[in-house]
């Protein structure tokens, strides 16, 4: 590695050394509690797949370049030189980890391995070693934000083409658009993904609830966050923030996409609007009696996978369960659930990057838990998780069908004939408990 590049990379490293980052880099005692916490290690028990080992790849650089002990006695804390060979270890830190932060919940010091991972991702970007597909997708998102006027008309037409499918799930009221766009003063701006599976069920549910809503022109997912580029993350999120402010909406409801929710809720500062997940909105509709579901539509045992970004990192545990208990009397949790849920193995950009063998092998622990429930439907509330879990079910030969919570709800909507308003929830209905429980 050339000296100039090394210098630039160390400057990037130094920029990430906040007080919190220094705390996490300084404080590991190698107790090893995190080892068993990682789904990758549980499925593929190799030392390099432990949280502590991944963090050490960065910590040893930190010792070398940012600590006095590393400068005068590098052997003391195993300080290492930053060179091309060590960048392979940096890659392992960044991309054999999904950033699920399960290890963090077990660490007695609460060391945020996600933050340490973000240093690794930044070093990879700085040395032009990051996964190019993630950068390309981030650039595409940014380009869309800059040229939205050019694509608005065709996107609107594509949305119009979906309206018949929305009306099939829920009738449209006379004179109303089934998928409204650009609604000034809407109560909810719904930010979907590009696929119709993310638009049609959500539209039917919001129409059934009589919501005053508007569909965003932008997709929710933030590839800037996947690749670990703070500047691109912000620029991609800003497109949605600008749209929400322009329309003066009260809430931005993020579709079933974990990273999109975490970025908008926790990484973009304060807004003039509230940020919620779509499952929170559905739970609200049920609680307020604005939609009603027909339990007889589903004759299956359902289990639920907690998406890491929505659950462990977002605190949304009970709403999806509350919804699913309106759909079946046979709901069963996975053995590791809520805060302790294992990652699906597809997070952090891995599901896009193409190394399917690693994704499949590293998530076997999740498959074993799904199998043990005997459930025939595995519900989830994240696109990334849905793709990964579907691949897992196919790879391991399970019949369990992976479905979005919103899709299940839309298919079970009770079509009211007189009034769209239905009576408020009774005490016999499943109660929403907002206190998070560890599994």
């Amino acid at each position, binding site marked *: 590695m050339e000296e100039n590049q090394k210098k630039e990379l160390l400057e990037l490293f130094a920029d990430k050394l906040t007080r919190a980052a220094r705390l996490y880099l300084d404080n590991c005692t190698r107790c090893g509690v995190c080892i068993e916490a990682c789904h990758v290690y549980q499925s593929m028990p190799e030392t390099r797949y432990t949280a502590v080992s991944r963090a050490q790849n960065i910590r040893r650089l930190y010792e070398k370049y940012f600590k006095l002990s590393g400068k005068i006695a590098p052997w003391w804390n195993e300080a290492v030189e930053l060179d091309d060979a060590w960048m392979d270890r940096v890659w392992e830190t960044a991309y054999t980890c999904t950033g699920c932060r399960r290890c963090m919940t077990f660490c007695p010091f609460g060391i945020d391995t996600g933050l340490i991972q973000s240093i690794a991702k930044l070093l990879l970007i700085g040395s032009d070693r990051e996964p190019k597909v993630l950068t*390309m997708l981030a650039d595409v998102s940014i380009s869309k934000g800059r040229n939205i006027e050019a694509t608005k008309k065709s996107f609107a037409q594509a949305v119009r083409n979906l309206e018949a499918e929305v009306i099939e799930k829920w009738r449209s009221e006379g004179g109303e658009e089934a998928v409204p766009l650009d609604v000034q003063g809407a109560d909810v701006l719904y930010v979907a993904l*590009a696929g*119709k599976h993310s638009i049609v069920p959500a539209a039917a549910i919001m129409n059934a609830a009589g919501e005053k809503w508007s569909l965003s022109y932008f997709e929710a997912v933030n590839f800037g966050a996947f690749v670990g580029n703070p500047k691109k993350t912000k620029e991609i999120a800003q497109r949605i923030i600008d749209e929400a402010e322009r329309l003066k909406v009260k809430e931005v409801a993020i579709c079933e996409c974990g990273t999109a929710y975490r970025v908008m809720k926790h990484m973009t500062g304060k807004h003039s609007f509230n940020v919620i997940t779509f499952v929170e909105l559905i739970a609200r509709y049920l609680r307020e009696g604005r939609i009603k579901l027909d339990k007889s539509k589903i004759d299956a045992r359902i289990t639920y996978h907690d998406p890491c970004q929505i659950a462990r990192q977002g605190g949304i545990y009970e709403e999806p369960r509350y919804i699913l208990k309106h759909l079946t009397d046979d709901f069963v949790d996975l053995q590791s659930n809520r805060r302790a849920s294992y990652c699906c193995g597809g997070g952090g950009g891995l599901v896009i990057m193409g190394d399917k063998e690693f994704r499949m092998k590293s998530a076997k622990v999740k498959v074993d838990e799904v199998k043990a429930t005997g459930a025939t439907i595995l519900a989830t509330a994240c696109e990334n998780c849905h793709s990964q879990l579907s691949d897992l079910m196919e790879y391991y030969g399970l019949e369990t069908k992976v479905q979005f919570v919103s899709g299940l709800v839309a298919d079970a909507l009770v079509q009211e004939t007189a009034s769209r308003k239905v009576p408020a929830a009774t005490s016999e209905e499943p109660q929403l408990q907002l206190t998070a429980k560890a599994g």
Partner: protein
Amino acid sequence: MSAHAVAKVLDLKGLPCPMPVVKMSQEINSVKVGEIIEVHTTDPGSLADFPAWADTTGNEVLETKQREGSIQIFVKRLK
């Protein structure tokens, strides 16, 4: 019948976001500079994604057609 001389057809129908653009990105180098790929997709977002991808990568979307149930996009490799 397409008015374009198509070198390759990519059937990306049913693929969820962002896979149509990922696949396009992987396949663009399988044709020569100046040749055209015809893409079939069902993602409504592709209408915005493909022009943005072309803009980012220096290629060109020649034409987009919306048909019942799918979207047809013609992409020319420029470099």
